[in-house]
């Protein structure tokens, strides 16, 4: 249209219609997206949820203490004394082994679950007919390095287990019923999906803050986020973890005990041969006995009484009349 020509009616109407349509569209978008409130406070805490109970109903409490320096052999004998692995793992079970792979250090330093135990337990579970065995942990050091250097990944894979490295998406915020600390906190739940049997395997270690790191402390590896904050109330967090997890079985490896410089160790001088392996269904009782390998009594470790108070087990391991075997 030449500049000096007046706008025709048709053109004016056309232009007005387009402008009107644009305005209507802008108005519709503004209306549809208008948020008069703005963002509110953070979403409420998720409802308290529980992890599945992995204990075997009707089995009762069992505990076995094996003596020997060959971990695989001692594990076999101790399990036999408790009725064999078949008493705990049945055909078709999907088993998860929660190891302690916290540090990127070699097996000889005993700062992590020994690969021989992982391999042997995997083998036994598969022999008993388990459909699958997986191994997981959320370590402190770099996860891939930890699983590689501890020998756990290699041992697990060659025995036929899957290794699940923790990824961000495997964690889900959880609130544990009655817990003061595990509230809206990320927990490594994805590896537990579909699992029917959960077995914890941990070494006996000195721990400067809590007094000892054994099977109950090992569940710390199911927590995500900046979990170090819980060290401010370590006894309570261990007890809450024991309350959160009801395993099928726990294995506490005191073949060598880290008696000093724990929980990292780093030198053979930090270790002592104690030639003892404890297998049991009651994690509190197993830890109560484990304390003796460190030269402590259950009463020296407040988390044991706290876990007992939460109903996670009994500190009086003698009441379970543990079976003792020697390899």
């Amino acid at each position, binding site marked *: 249209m030449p500049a000096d020509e007046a706008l025709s009616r048709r053109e004016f109407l056309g232009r007005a219609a387009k402008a009107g349509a644009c305005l209507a569209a802008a108005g519709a978008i503004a209306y549809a997206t208008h948020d008069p409130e703005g963002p509110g406070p953070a979403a409420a805490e998720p409802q308290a949820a529980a992890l599945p109970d992995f204990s075997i109903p009707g089995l009762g409490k069992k505990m076995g203490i094996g003596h020997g320096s060959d971990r695989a052999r001692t594990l076999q004998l101790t399990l036999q004394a408790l009725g064999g692995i078949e008493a705990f793992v049945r055909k078709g079970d999907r088993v998860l082994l929660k190891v302690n792979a916290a*540090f990127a250090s070699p097996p000889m330093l005993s700062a992590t679950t020994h690969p021989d135990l992982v391999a042997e337990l995997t083998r036994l579970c598969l022999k008993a007919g388990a459909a699958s065995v997986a191994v997981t942990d959320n370590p402190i*050091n770099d996860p*891939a390095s930890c699983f590689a250097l501890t020998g756990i990944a290699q041992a697990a894979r060659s025995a036929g287990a899957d290794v699940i490295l923790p990824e961000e998406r495997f964690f889900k915020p959880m609130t544990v019923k009655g817990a003061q600390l595990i509230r809206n906190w990320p927990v490594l739940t994805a590896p537990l999906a579909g699992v029917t049997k959960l077995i914890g395997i941990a070494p006996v270690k000195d721990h*400067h803050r809590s007094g000892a790191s054994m099977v109950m402390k090992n569940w710390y590896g199911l927590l995500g986020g900046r979990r170090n904050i819980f060290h401010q*109330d370590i006894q309570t967090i261990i007890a809450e973890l024991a309350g959160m997890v009801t395993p099928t079985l726990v294995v506490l490896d005191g073949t060598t005990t880290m008696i000093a410089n724990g929980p*990292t160790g780093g*030198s053979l001088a930090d270790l002592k041969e104690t030639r003892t392996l404890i297998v049991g269904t009651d994690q509190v009782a197993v830890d109560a006995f484990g304390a003796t390998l460190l030269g402590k009594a259950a009463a020296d470790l407040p*988390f044991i009484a706290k876990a007992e108070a939460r109903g996670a087990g009994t500190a009086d391991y003698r009441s379970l009349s543990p079976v003792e075997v020697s390899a």
Partner: protein
Amino acid sequence: MSIVTARRISQVFFAVVFVWFCVASTLGDLPWQLRGWPVNWLLELDPLVGIATLLSTRTLYAGLLWGLATVALTLVLGRVFCGWICPFGAMHQFIGYLGKRRKKLAAQLEANRFRPAQAIKYYILVFFLTAAILLPDGWLSSGSLLTGLLDPLPLVHRSVNLILLPLADRAGLGPSPLPRWYEGAWLIGAVFLAALFLNLRVPRFYCRFVCPLGALLGVLSRFAVWRIGRTEEGCTDCRLCERGCEGACEPTGRIRISECVMCLNCLDECRHDAVTYRTRPSAAGEILLPDLSRRGFIVSAVSGVLAAPVMRLGGLTGPNWNPGLIRPPGALPEEAFLTRCIKCGQCMRVCPTNVIHPAGFEAGLEGLWTPKLSFRAGTSGCQHTCIACGNLCPTAAIRPISLDERRGRNEFSGRGPIRIGTAFVDRGRCLPWAMDRPCIVCQENCPVSPKAIFTREVFNAVRTNAPLTVKSVDRGRIALTSDTLEAGRFGTGDYHALLPGGLRLRITANTAGALDLERPLDGPEAPPAGSPVAVQVRLQQPHVDPKQCIGCGVCEHECPVLGLRAIRVTAENESRNPHHRMVL
């Protein structure tokens, strides 16, 4: 098969090899991981790395000998490396192709005409090489290796390793088990994207105007036995040969040998077989050397020679060293380090804990993109059982140390472990020191034996609303005269009741007005009504033993004071610079 197809196959092949090497630089022994793959090979083939480090260190380190192969190739055949091998060149060529494919012939010819600014790359090269020269001892403070800033192989390795792969990680397609962080990645990404997108303006922009390696090979190609050139007869001056000319070397006229990247598009385009690759010079004449002005050359060279001494006036390699700059274990003393590091990012890529990051200006301008440790990002501190970075470093800026040397074992037991710094507790931020909260996560995670972090136990009186007074004692329970306590607070196992006479017992539970103790109080122990009782918290306060601390930063990484950590590593006492020694 036409020669151009062969060139494309070669470019794709080397690009695939390059990407594969980048992916394979993942620590591990799976087939796709590092194992023993020669992932530095393309960097080693880059003769600018070899020549520049030769000038700065007077030695040619290990695999850098491969650069000789490229030099030989260039001396015989011309810049084949640029046109057939360089993965960065292949990226430029591909994007340049996208930019010009719909353009008219005239526009394509315009894009590929020679521009005098192509001389800039030679000035850059002269500046970098003269800056790298290590003058005889006592002469200024020389030998700053800056080539890595723009050398295409380090640049493309850095860009893919620190930008593209981490992005792929986040999309779930990358090689790392956990997404990776790299401080200051934006600048590396910006340089990379700018270099790529400039091809839309002028094809192979980077190669023509910037690339110091291209400049080096351009100079070497003056002796090339075989060259591109015009035959004596047949040319109709149609200029079709210049349509796809990647180097803008003007094959129609007097061909500029130093600019020719051996893309061979001219051979393919010529309808009259008037362009050949032969030993005789072009019938239209040749321009063998780049068009450098004497003045420009002198300016670049003098600037280069002065660059290192001027940059070092800041004192970062001397008394004003930056304590926040933690170099990886095995890194050379700072001045020697700066004569070798090409900023390729291989150490940052291979580091299993993602603790090595590209420096900003912490090490000065010349230290841009050199490795530094950042203990907040990453999945752990620097694992003292790991020696990956030094064993991958293509120039030994980080020496290939053994595990024994790192740990100070066996033959190295006399020297002690390699220290990269020392941890310091910030008592104003540390929970047990400043906030009466038990913690010692740092002590727990200290990986050396005996631990470098040890604790001293103290009992501090807890802040209560009012002084506490005993009302009555029933076995292990002390009832108080007031109901002022927070119920349950003191039952964590860390709190103790201090009774008159100094008896201290652990509290197992409390209500607002009563304390439960770990054991019953017998007769004389029981305090009489009206006596004071104090609640104390048992704290283990961390201390660092500098003799044991190796500066690995695991403590700093794990510290629950997440912002500015309450225990931090600085470069004090690092082994590589003996004058940073802190204690006797």
